[in-house]
């Protein structure tokens, strides 16, 4: 069966619809079947519907995504309570250890991202991975910083990513590779993203899974959960009314 490729992090400039269309067309041309755009929490339903229609006309599936950057554990919980049912993918940027631990154990979080280029501020260690594997969260690795950095900065980034990838694989935490592209120049084919994953010692098939199987399963699982007939994993409401015997 043909693989379906997913980019879970496109930075669409939704105020510029012409550029948005160009980026979506480019994603389709590069071979993506599904893209998720980072939207602000207060994005109105009209805009989301418009982008979904635009994607349908181009022939690409669209998922809504929100990125949370909470400073405290309570802020994270508040955001999740408010936004989980509005977006199909929830990513948390972990800027402190407390937030990272809470995000890893919360089943409402889909993606964990560690932005800092400082070994003491990258919190994806074995404890974090164990919590994440129990809660079905994935480790998000963005390719844009890798493309735009060079020299020592890129070397350090690759070193951190290599360590985190090993921990994730050891604990069975899925790795999701996304582009974080805000311009068409930064967009790469899914197989190119998988090849770039070999730079941090993932093998090519695992890299392919990171741009197809893992992100696709996250979106599928969340879409199932967001349906009105969903009760719990494996349990769905099939009939409602007085004649249910």
């Amino acid at each position, binding site marked *: 069966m043909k693989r379906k490729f997913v980019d879970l992090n496109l930075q669409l400039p939704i105020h510029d619809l012409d550029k948005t269309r160009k980026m979506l067309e480019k994603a389709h041309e590069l071979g993506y079947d599904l893209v998720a755009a980072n939207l602000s929490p207060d994005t109105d339903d009209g805009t989301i519907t418009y982008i979904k229609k635009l994607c349908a006309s181009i022939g690409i599936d669209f998922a809504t995504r929100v990125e949370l950057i909470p400073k405290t554990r309570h802020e994270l919980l508040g955001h999740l309570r408010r936004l989980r049912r509005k977006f199909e993918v929830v990513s948390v940027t972990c800027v402190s250890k407390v937030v990272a631990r809470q995000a890893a154990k919360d089943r409402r979080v889909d993606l964990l991202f560690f932005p800092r280029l400082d070994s003491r501020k990258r919190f994806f260690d074995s404890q974090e991975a164990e919590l994440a594997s129990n809660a079905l969260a994935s480790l998000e690795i963005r390719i844009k910083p890798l493309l735009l950095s060079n020299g020592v900065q890129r070397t350090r980034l690759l070193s951190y990513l290599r360590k985190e990838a090993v921990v994730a694989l050891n604990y069975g935490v899925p790795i999701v590779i996304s582009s974080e592209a805000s311009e*068409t*120049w930064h967009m*790469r084919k899914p197989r*190119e993203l998988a090849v*770039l994953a*070999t730079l941090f010692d993932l093998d*090519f098939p695992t890299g392919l899974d990171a741009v197809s199987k893992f992100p696709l399963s996250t979106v599928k699982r969340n879409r199932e959960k967001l349906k009105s007939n969903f009760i719990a994993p494996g349990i769905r409401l099939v009939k409602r009314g007085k004649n249910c015997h």
Partner: protein
Amino acid sequence: MSLRTKPRHRYLALKIESNKTFDKRTLLNKIWNSLTRLYGEYGASKANLVLIDYKPEEGFAILRCNNNGILMVRAAIAIITQIMEAQVAIHVLAISGTIKALRRKLSQTQNV
């Protein structure tokens, strides 16, 4: 049983997207630089990179490399974002073991 000593090659068809055009030497130097920065001189020497064909106006090129170095070359190409301060994205259109099969693949994809 005989050992195969002849190296296997892979041919890559590339699409170069940029607002500027570059000459053959500039493009090849950029790919070599990228390869050397990522894998060092020792790693880059294993790739055995050769630019077979280049059409600057069409943004099309064919590269040849060693089969063992194919992932290194693809990574080095994917990571290029600028050539002579112009924004660039280089995509691999097709890969094949012979140049004839590569051209056939390309013509098939263009017909679809």
